[in-house]
């Protein structure tokens, strides 16, 4: 009986081994190897040059995660309090952009943020740029003919927030939505006003959703390369870009690429473990 059931697991175990375990082992081997096949730590020691890329990656990803949380939590909370029809509609609207190709979405942001893009044209037409020039003139600044948006860290963060916000909203929404209503009634019954009900019951009980949301936004943000390349205009290099360059770009060095991936992975895992610890094992947060 038990053996029979174990049989069903074979394909999954095989799949996991082939496509998860083996690649990770390969990354580890590559990271500690030289091109000639020797063992070395040089791949790691040479990483110091890229400290700024590490800092930028984690800083921008953190910022994007924080903004997603600040937007996503209230959104999820208010959606979950509405009627079922509104909830369905809102969920559909939130997921709608995800049905479009990720690159396409990011390209569209490019055309919105470009120096001659939609936003700058709009600012020009409503006279915002002239207004700025007028004021800037008073302080002896040179006039501009556009606002610099593309190629700034802000644009990269915007791209991350735009692309990953649904991953923050969905888990928080589903936790709050599934929360036992009688718990809220019990808190009210014991004298708590709505602010206290939120602080003492809803917030702590929704932490597992927050943790999964944070994980699901932070991890892809820190390793993204398309967003930083397209919206960062080549000036906002992130870890994803760096790694990509080592495998496909001019700076071909898969060993260094593997080492960077490994370090990034370790840092991310450590972050997640620490965070999950904060959640105090309160229901298991989703680890990606």
């Amino acid at each position, binding site marked *: 009986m038990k053996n029979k059931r174990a049989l069903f697991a074979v394909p999954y175990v095989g799949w996991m081994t082939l496509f998860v375990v083996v690649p990770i082992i390969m990354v580890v081997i590559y990271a500690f190897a030289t091109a000639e096949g020797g063992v070395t730590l040089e791949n790691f020691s040479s990483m110091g040059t890229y400290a700024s890329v590490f800092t930028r990656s984690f800083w921008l990803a953190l910022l994007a995660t924080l903004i997603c949380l600040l937007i996503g939590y209230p959104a999820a909370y208010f959606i979950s309090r509405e009627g079922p029809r509104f909830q369905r509609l809102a969920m559909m609207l939130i997921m709608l952009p995800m049905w479009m190709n990720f690159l396409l979405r990011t390209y569209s942001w490019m055309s919105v943020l470009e120096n001659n893009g939609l936003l700058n044209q709009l600012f020009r037409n409503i006279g915002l740029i002239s207004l700025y020039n007028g004021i800037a003139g008073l302080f002896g600044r040179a006039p501009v003919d556009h606002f610099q948006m593309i190629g700034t860290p802000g644009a990269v963060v915007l791209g991350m927030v735009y692309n990953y916000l649904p991953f923050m909203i969905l888990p928080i929404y589903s936790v709050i939505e599934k929360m036992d209503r009688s718990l809220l*009634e*019990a*808190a*009210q*019954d*014991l*004298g*708590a*006003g709505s602010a206290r009900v939120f602080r003492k019951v809803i917030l702590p009980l929704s932490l597992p959703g927050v943790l999964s949301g944070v994980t699901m936004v932070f991890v892809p943000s820190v390793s993204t390369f398309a967003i930083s390349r397209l919206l960062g205009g080549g000036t906002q290099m992130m870890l994803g870009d760096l790694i990509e360059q080592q495998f496909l770009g001019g700076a071909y060095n898969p060993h260094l690429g593997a080492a960077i991936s490994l370090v990034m992975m370790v840092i991310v895992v450590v972050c997640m473990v620490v965070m999950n610890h904060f959640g105090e094992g309160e229901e298991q947060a989703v680890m990606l």
Partner: protein
Amino acid sequence: MLRLRCGDIKIMEKERGRIMSKKLISLADCCVAFDGELVLDHINLYFNDSEFLTLLGPSGCGKTTTLRIIGGFLTPTSGEVLFDGVRINDIPPNQRQVNTVFQRYALFPHLNVFENVAFGLRVPKTETVEGRKKKVKIPEEEIRQRVLEMLEVVSLKGFENRRITELSGGQQQRVAIARALVNRPKVLLLDEPLGALDLRLRKDMQSELKRIQQQLGITFIYVTHDQEEALAMSDTIVVMDQGRIQQIGTPEDIYNEPKNAFVADFIGESNILDGVMHEDFVVEFFNRKFKCLDKGFGPMEPVDVVIRPEDVDIVPPEKGQLRGTVTSVTFKGVHYDTIVDFKGFKWLIQTTDYHPEGETIGIILNPDDIHIMHKSEYSGMFGDYSSYSEEYDELEDVSLLEEDGEGGDEE
């Protein structure tokens, strides 16, 4: 005959006592409709100070809805809720001097036992000091003392630091009671608090609850669909069905003088037959006149006649007022459930003597064994035991399911 008269006087005394003591909460003509469907139908009801009142009725009859109106979680579609004579329809739950033990306990899973019980005490209270409103917090030391005291009342001393998930059903139940009572409410609402417990534990908790209620002198409004529980615990029982109050009275009152066929059937077992009231104290059924103790019916008024299974005396056939044939016998421990066929109508008779299937027996009905009720919408729906065996099986299934829920209380 004498027995019932005494009972009558007792009931009247109790009823008078109920009217004279202080009304704490009243529901005046309350209706609740969900999507146009009437769930509570013109409920008029009052709750006295320090009273143990039970709302009793089958599932879906509107008991929880009634509690939710009192707790403030639901505003009645029409009608008024009065607390000490003041209309409280629009007062939110957190400002009512009422606490609730929820049907599924609703304990906070992220807090331990102590913090669950302390939850209400930690809420700052608004108090008017010298004409100005001030938020007052209970000092930590007092919170600690009151929580521990209350945990002792519900026999959970030493459990303060346990997680909720580490408690058995019975223990969780007691945490829920402590969490509500620690706030010293004037009224405690309990929604089928023992529903998920097994039989033994349920019995223990029944007397425990009754003890706590008497010790603290708080009004308990208790919801259950279990008639035995209601009879055992209550000062006053309110029998409900389909959103309407069927009868209000003391347990004795309700058992001995059911108002209609529904109450008679729901409270214990009842044989309910069609009869005709000839004159005061004379009723006819099965083409025979019987003496009874009821009066005040119209001449030749059709009525429902209730005969409790334990009230019937079995005698040899030739001595009986009626003769019937035993069609089935079930041993129930203290007595035998004997089904007897009288001219096609099957009665349930509970007797300590064994009468085998097929035996012809006679029965004698004393005047105080016969209870007369006006005809109602429930007439003809209950009280015939022709389908007894199926009904019996059904009941057994239900109790099995209920007792499945919890593993019991280990201590």
